[in-house]
């Protein structure tokens, strides 16, 4: 009985899929980390009083959010040739860039929305005490806004994680691609795809549960 399970096509696919899962997580985490930095800057840019900066950031957000990530990654990988930009981008780099610029556009909106959601009286209280605009942002607005960013950032993690599956088109060795490679050899398509989905769910479901708890706890 135990042997039957251990020998089942479901279990057999796992070592291969785990390789893919590592890559999936690497792309997601690296992309989100960089996306958070870029998104934070773009979000601040959108809050800026400088119309030019504000305009550039708005265009960036609209372009990225208005085009499919699949088109973006093909553009980065195949469209930006060495002739054009003077360096070649490998598939993994293209994938991380795609997640970064995509997550950044959404995170920019998360940052802007969170800062906007802080009651205007908070800023006024800070300024009326003699704090500078910078100090008010740093000590009063940001700490409160950051708390409100956590749930949507967790949500973005789930979205970006799933987006990485699109990168099988440029042969990034993420989990779906590894699954395809595997069933092309074994023809165990159903079993393999079931396992691929389970691996996604093992990450996304606990994330959602933690987020919901956090949301309740932070009262946001």
């Amino acid at each position, binding site marked *: 009985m135990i042997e039957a399970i251990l020998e089942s096509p479901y279990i057999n696919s796992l070592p291969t899929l785990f390789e893919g899962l590592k890559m999936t997580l690497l792309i997601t985490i690296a992309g989100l980390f960089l996306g958070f930095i870029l998104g934070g800057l773009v979000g601040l840019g959108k809050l800026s009083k400088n119309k030019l900066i504000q305009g550039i950031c708005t265009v960036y957000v609209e372009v990225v959010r208005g085009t499919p990530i699949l088109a973006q990654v093909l553009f980065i990988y195949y469209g930006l040739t060495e002739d054009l930009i003077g360096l070649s981008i490998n598939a993994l780099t293209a994938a991380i860039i795609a997640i970064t610029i995509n997550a950044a556009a959404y995170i920019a909106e998360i940052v802007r929305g969170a800062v906007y959601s802080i009651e205007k009286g908070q800023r006024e209280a800070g*300024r*009326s*005490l*003699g*704090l500078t605009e910078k100090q008010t942002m740093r000590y*009063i607005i940001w700490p409160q806004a950051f708390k409100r960013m956590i749930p949507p950032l967790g949500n973005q993690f789930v979205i970006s994680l799933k987006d990485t599956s699109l990168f099988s088109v440029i042969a990034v060795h993420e989990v779906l691609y590894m699954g395809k490679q595997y069933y092309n050899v074994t023809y165990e398509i159903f079993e393999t795809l079931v396992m691929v989905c389970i691996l996604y769910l093992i990450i996304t479901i606990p994330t959602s549960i933690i987020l919901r708890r956090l949301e309740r706890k932070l009262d946001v």
Partner: protein
Amino acid sequence: MIEIKNLHKSFGDVEVLSGINATIKQKEVVCVIGPSGSGKSTLLRCLNLLEEITSGQVLIDGTDLTDPATDINKLRTDVGMVFQHFNLFPHKTVLENITLAPIKVKRMSDREAKDVAIPLLEKVGLSDKADAYPDSLSGGQKQRVAIARALAMNPKYMLFDEPTSALDPELVGEVLQVMKDLADEGMTMVVVTHEMGFAREVGDRVIFMDEGIIQEEGNPEQVFVDPQNERTQGFLSKIL
């Protein structure tokens, strides 16, 4: 001394203050009354430049707020403000609410700031709440913390914008008492309020505003008992 000279304030095309002239002397308690939308809050907020001044002048101890060379952050430390909705910092404890500005603006050490804050908490009767978060306080307690927070900068002037309007009736008294104590100690105060009892008892002068101008002013007895202006009469008959 606060001198307001021909102060105008517009939001877009809408003129909200249409030439305010007033002088608030040291240790004076001036109460501002008037119907909703008459520009009371806007006037108060022009006195610490939370609203930009469209034209005219506000001088605080001779320093012109409209002069671009004026260090407005420094000036604001002289002018404390208390808001209708308290605006306490919810992510900070009561003590931290009070010590933040002394530490960041006046560059006090934590220790020094605490030595300033503790007596103020005693003064507003909340010594036992130092480590509480604002969310756990009643409205009256929150407003008393907000007053202590403003006082921690050792201001020369205090501006109050309807400090008791958001409070349950039974909590109004404790806040007014703190304000009365402050007035008795000689604090110069400008108070927008609908508390006519407070205005009569504590106020040295009452200013009645309507449609962006001062319609009438005088000592409280005179304004309340024998208002000269028709609008003042109409307003008082509605609220008294």
